[in-house]
């Protein structure tokens, strides 16, 4: 029995070690350890072994079985490693092939820029509000200190529905709505569509967007207006941006200013982008005219405020370097997919 076991052991281990595939290994396993395998046969022969020797032989059988099993296990594991290694070798890919893109949609460049502007002002404590696009003459003109017969009211600039109702020409009308609510202080921006009777060309559109800003509180100064817009310009165009405030005239602000920013392409040295000026005009602003405050029932002796308005399309064309405004309204996928 002993000899038989030793022989099986030796034979088995030898065969296992010479195996080269998982299939032949499994076959061997069946041949030795399976239900009809040699080791099972040995166990069957245990009944013929002398009772006194049985514990010893039993022990030997178990040891041999364990040894063969371990051997199998070792071999299986090394075969598996080899197979895996071989597979990995065949699975090499060309990582320079292009990635697979999901066809996500794109934001309109104007929306992209609007979000940037909104984020900046929300960060400074402004609420984002809206107002009607079809508007009463009063809100678009009269309440903004633009009386009847003002040249700006000329039909050629404003689309009228009838004598009292028009398409707003400026988001400044939202200032009046917001102030009429009577809740002070106010810090708001109001983005929205505006309309002017301009024929469509590379720099004009009869329908475009403005972003209005309004702050009303006690003790608001022109210096606050400067600081606020300077901060906006730095966050929007970059930290090295400088601003230049030039006196201007708007009927609903006093003093009024136009604001230029140092050209963000050349840093102010003058280039083709800023037409050699080094500066680019971006918005109009001023202190809310005391008469405008009076008309909405806010006492200009107690409160003051500032307002500003900028063209969203202008900011978008500038920042995205788009050279023709018409592209914004054609909605060509090849254009939109760039943003």
């Amino acid at each position, binding site marked *: 029995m002993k000899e038989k076991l030793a022989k099986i052991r030796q034979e088995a281990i030898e065969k296992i070690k010479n195996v080269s595939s998982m299939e032949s290994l499994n076959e061997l396993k069946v041949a030795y350890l399976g239900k009809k395998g040699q080791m099972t046969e040995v166990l069957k022969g245990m009944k013929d072994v002398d009772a006194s020797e049985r514990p010893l032989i039993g022990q030997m059988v178990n040891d041999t079985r364990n040894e063969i099993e371990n051997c199998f296990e070792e071999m299986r594991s090394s075969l598996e490693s080899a197979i895996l290694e071989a597979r990995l070798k065949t699975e090499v890919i060309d990582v320079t092939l292009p990635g697979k893109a999901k066809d996500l949609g794109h934001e309109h460049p104007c929306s992209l820029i609007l979000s940037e502007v909104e984020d900046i002002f929300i960060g400074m404590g402004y609420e984002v509000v809206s107002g009607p696009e*079809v508007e009463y003459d009063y809100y678009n003109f009269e309440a903004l200190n633009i009386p009847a017969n003002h040249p700006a009211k000329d039909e050629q600039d404003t689309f009228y529905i009838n004598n009292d109702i028009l398409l707003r020409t400026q988001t400044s009308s939202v200032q009046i709505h917001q102030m009429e609510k009577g809740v002070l202080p106010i810090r708001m921006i109001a983005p929205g569509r505006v309309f002017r009777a301009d024929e469509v060309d590379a720099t004009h559109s009869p329908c475009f967007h403005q972003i209005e800003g309004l702050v009303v509180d006690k003790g608001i100064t022109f210096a606050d207006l400067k600081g606020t817009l300077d901060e906006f310009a730095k966050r929007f165009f970059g930290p090295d941006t400088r601003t230049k405030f030039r006196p201007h005239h708007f009927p609903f602000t006093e003093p009024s200013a136009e604001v230029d920013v140092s050209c963000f392409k050349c840093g102010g040295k003058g280039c083709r982008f800023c037409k050699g000026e080094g500066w680019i005009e971006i918005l109009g602003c001023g202190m809310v005219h005391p008469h405008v405050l009076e008309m909405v029932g806010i006492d200009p002796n107690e409160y003051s405020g500032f307002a500003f308005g900028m063209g969203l399309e202008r900011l978008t064309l500038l920042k995205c370097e788009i050279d023709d405004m018409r592209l914004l309204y054609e909605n060509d996928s090849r254009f939109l997919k760039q943003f």
Partner: protein
Amino acid sequence: MNASLSWIKAYVPDLTAGYQEFRDAMTLSGTKVEGFTQFDKDLDKIVIGQIDKIEKHPDADKLLICQVNLGDENVQIVTGASNVFEGAKIPVVKDGGKVAGGHDGKMTEGGITIKAGKLRGIDSYGMMCSIEELGSTREMYPDAAENGIYILPDDAEIGADAIEYLGLHDANYEFEITSNRVDCYSVLGIAREAAATFRLPFHGIEPKIEKTIEDIHDYLEVEVEDPDLCPRYTCMMVKNIRLAPSPMWLQRRLASNGIRPINNVVDITNYVMEEFGQPMHAFDYDTIHGHKIIVKRANDGDLFVTLDGQERKLDKDILMINDAERPIGIAGIMGGEDSKITDDVQTLVFESACFDGTNNRLSAKRLGMRTDASGKYEKGLDPNNALPALIRACQLIEELDAGDVVGGTIDIYPDPVEEKQILFDPERINAYLGTDIDEETQLSFFPPLEIKYDPSTRMLTIPTFRQDLLRGADIAEEVARFYGYDNIPSTLPDSEEMSGRLTRGFVVQNKIRETMRAYGYSEAMTFSFESPKVFDKLHLVADDPHRNAITISNPLGEDYSIMRTSLINGMLTSLAINYNRRNKTAALYELSNIYLPKALPLTELPDERMTLCFGFYGDGDFFDLKGTMEEVLTRLGLKMSRDYVADGSIAFLHPGRQAKVMIKGGREQIGYLGEVHPQVSKTYGINGKAYVAQVDAQALYEYANFDKKYKEIPKYPAVTRDLSMVMDKSIPAGEIENVIAKCGGKLIESYSLFDVYEGERIGENKKSLAYNLVFRAKDRTLEDKDVNPVIDKIIEKLKEKNIELRS
């Protein structure tokens, strides 16, 4: 407004700023310079010379050899010009100097450098110049020769700087004047701003006349019948007119402002218009019937021939200048053919008036004739400027000896404009600007502006030409402008901390945008107005509510004449542009307002509804569209169930492939979707299937719910069953789903369609739908005995609806 620096300096003699410095400083104090033309930019080393001797060139018939005295040297110059003669004084560009262009008037950027050289073998040390080579024209320098060297007047000093002599060391500035600064449409007004900007004294002018003959009142009578349109009317007369060219200084000054000199009388009116910003009209006295001027409104339908020979149709809102018998001019716009000044004029009447700006502007617009004069009047001139300007014109007549000024002035000015008083409050100004400018500095800005200050009352007296200064804030602006906006500090409002936010509408919009992008739709933007023809393009029936659109009374044309009532046309147009440009696919969305009138014609503001529209062509079908619709509503957290009702009622969609999206058990429609009707796609130029959907985003503001609650992740496994059913084609899948949902009770977790089959195997007009059902309990593992009764119930209920299990 244009003005030359030399003319401005006439009133601010201490001004020494360079061209660029002047431009920058003026812009920063509020008189924005759009640009400037520097006359001597490309001129260098040009002096006045005199030709001593002329000989013929031995080898060239058309060339002359000139010996020229340049004062400190004598040089030989060969010229091709034929108008030179011995003794002529001429501009000479010396060796190494520069001229602006060729004698043909073509300018060369950077100028042309002239070097000594040989012409047909003869040495030439420079060039004699024509006016064109000096960068100007005979229009501006009428005394310059045509096609030849500019022969200078005798007073030209040999060896002197010819550029200086011709007044070309100068630049013409183009200023952008804002509508509130009527006073700056004059050289005097600009000069006042310049003086204040550079903190220099301003030397205005007080015109007066030395000698007059007779009295105007013996010659002329004036009556203003409509003083509401003519606050002031002044006249003076000049007899014995002696027409002649203006003196050089006046010609040069007009030329520097880009105005062509003509003759002394015309030049004077032009000069005063520039200097004072006051238009002036001259009538030939002998053509004024009855020697009487009447200012009154025209009658509707009157006809009048203006001095350009055109017949104009008048109306009762147009103010006319009449004589005793007939109109002789349209007030402040243009004079009449019959009374215009001719070369035979003996006696003329100068009119200097103030007309109502608005009336003038509207009249000029109705007549379609905006003239130099109306361009000034329409801004609303200062009536107190009219008389000084008139006297200035007569002063120049006297100075130029262009005639004899008649004594006296006719001045009809019933309601003189008074100077305003504004309290000077330096602390308030500082508090408003956020500055700390001392009182003395603030006061120093006023004298050049001719604003007077009385320390005893602390009142500022505002000259009447400053119609824009009405209250303290306006004074603050003056202080800010001349202190320099740049010098005002930059601070942030230090009011109580406020928290910024998007209002709810914008939050919902952003969520929608996010979902649309995730589903591959790019954002489009289209105009808010469109053509009324779109209704027919969309096959809308005559009484379709979409046709109730607001009409713009003065549109840019029919294509932009109504406010859109849906976004569909914009979407189809955008898709068509893509299709037309051969983009294989396009998927777009627009989130924008539509305009729904409450009643027409409009008496109150319309309902502006934020609306979502999305559409595509090229890749996908109805169910992709529907999937997107579902996702939008799900992402907005819409709790209520949606029904898709297919009644085929939307005219521009495929009758069998469209649905209305209903909520609240079918009581409220929030949108629709479908395949575009093939005829409609074709009309728009899309050959192939296109899909569109529209949703009332505004309604979703209310229904959206961003409150998210955690639901326990299931611990126990699910039991899944597949059911395959056969039914008539006409039975919608929704029926099956209703049954599954209802019978599934608590145990059904989800169900989904995984196969649709139509074909021979199940018979004509039949279809087979296969659903995968998932059952799960929260508290235990489900067994067959739990699920089987549910399945049985579902099958039984489906049978009642003639839906059979597929065998």
